[in-house]
């Protein structure tokens, strides 16, 4: 049975995190999950929008949710920031009918109406809970045996708390990595912030956060870091050189999306998963477990 969701890629996945989009599409298809892109979606507002105007920020999210509701499908976001914004917007609008009414007046300009009928999910949650770890395990063709992965949760996938889930010691990312045959490493900073937009607004602080994280993962034995958010990926991967220049470190650890690792284990060719577009090549780490070969 094919599971269907309304897919909200978000701005980063259009270019900067193209490989996340490609690997999300390939991997979900292989798992009988259909991601139907929300037509004409707009930016979720990121963290920055809430710095200026809360009402407009919620309106932006509500437009995407209203379009998704027309599909009668739950929304799936691969970006932790988009996920958190749209989850909070739905929650807020559902609890505040006056606010929803006001925003619906604005949405009417685009012939839309928010009703709150579509739930908001993160892509990793869909894989872990809806598809299920047993099912993923069953479909693994090329297990990533011996690959030391640091599963990096970051922030907004867990926080603020969405329901009653464990936000202090979650295990679902480790469990997913185990299901594809990889070897998740335990490290202290798996829930620590990557710095987010501070990389722009407070470079010194953000680079120091990135250094601590990478250092902790590598010291704990990680050959590769897995993320579930484009901002985390860019901060941890693309700023490694700058961290090395700034702190005199010699960090060189690849950072892939969980969808790329799951895809590899399912037997999908690396080229189809956007592997090769990293600034820190994942090839040496993948070759060591026999998953480096094969193009598009």
């Amino acid at each position, binding site marked *: 049975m094919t599971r269907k969701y309304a897919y909200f890629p978000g701005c980063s996945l259009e270019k900067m995190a193209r490989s996340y989009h490609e690997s999300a599409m390939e991997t979900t298809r292989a798992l009988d999950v259909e991601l139907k892109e929300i037509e004409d979606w707009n930016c979720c507002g990121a963290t920055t929008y809430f710095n200026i*105007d*809360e009402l407009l920020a919620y309106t932006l999210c509500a437009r995407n949710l209203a379009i998704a509701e027309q599909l009668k499908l739950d929304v799936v976001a691969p970006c932790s920031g988009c996920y958190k914004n749209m989850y909070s917007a739905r929650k807020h609008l559902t609890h505040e009918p006056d606010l929803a009414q006001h925003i619906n007046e604005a949405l009417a300009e685009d012939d839309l109406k928010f009703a709150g009928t579509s739930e908001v999910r993160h892509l990793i949650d869909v894989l872990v809970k809806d598809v299920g770890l047993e099912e993923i395990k069953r479909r693994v063709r090329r297990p990533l045996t011996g690959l030391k992965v640091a599963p990096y949760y970051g922030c907004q996938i867990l926080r*603020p708390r969405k329901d009653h889930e464990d936000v202090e010691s979650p295990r679902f990312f480790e469990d997913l990595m185990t299901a594809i045959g990889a070897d998740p490493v335990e490290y202290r900073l798996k829930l620590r*912030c990557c710095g987010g*937009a501070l990389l722009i*607004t*407070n*470079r010194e602080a953000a680079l120091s956060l990135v250094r601590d994280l990478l250092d902790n993962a590598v010291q704990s034995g990680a050959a590769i870091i897995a993320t579930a958010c484009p901002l985390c990926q860019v901060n941890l991967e693309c700023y490694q050189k*700058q961290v090395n220049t700034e702190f005199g470190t010699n960090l060189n650890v690849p950072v892939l999306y969980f969808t790329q690792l799951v895809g590899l284990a399912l037997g999908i060719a690396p080229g189809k998963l956007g592997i090769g*577009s990293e600034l820190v090549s994942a090839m040496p780490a993948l070759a060591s477990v026999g998953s480096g070969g094969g193009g598009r």
Partner: protein
Amino acid sequence: MSTETIETRLDFIGEINNLLYASTSNPVNTCIQCGTCSGSCPVASGGFMSHTPRRIISMIRANRKEETLRANTYWYCSSCYMCTVRCPRGIDIAELMYALKRYSIWKTEYGKDLIGPTFSETFIQTIMKSGRSYEPVLATTYLFSFGFQDMLQEAATATGLMLKGRMPVLPPRIKRLENFKRMVRKIVPVEEK
């Protein structure tokens, strides 16, 4: 009719609580100054904030408005929400930081050396014009405030991304942009320049 003067001005904590009226968390007054927020904050722990979140809350309660607005604390919050999930009193501290950002932009009372306010404003203008975000335009807001070495490093990172096809060349734009703009004007009823 009574001639007694009524209290018409809110104190600072009253203003802050009003800013947070939409939040479901407990009011700032319920803080017990335990410092869990400061200890959980990766930016404060690294010594990058002028005042820790715990201290900001105590300053708000002491009605020290100007000192609070001059602090860089809230603009250096990365929105990781660790403080929020750990606060034993159920105060949404990360949301409080957002409220302070909005308040400081409204009053234009933030440190002039901060990149956050201008960056946020440009980000929003970009979304208002096209419906989606576009990295190259955003870069112009902060690149020139960087030192020369940092700017070179940033340019090298951008070039690396470009070579891997990870930098957008053309700004993206949603299709129903006119509807989108009308929707925005319904919330903020001003004519576009």
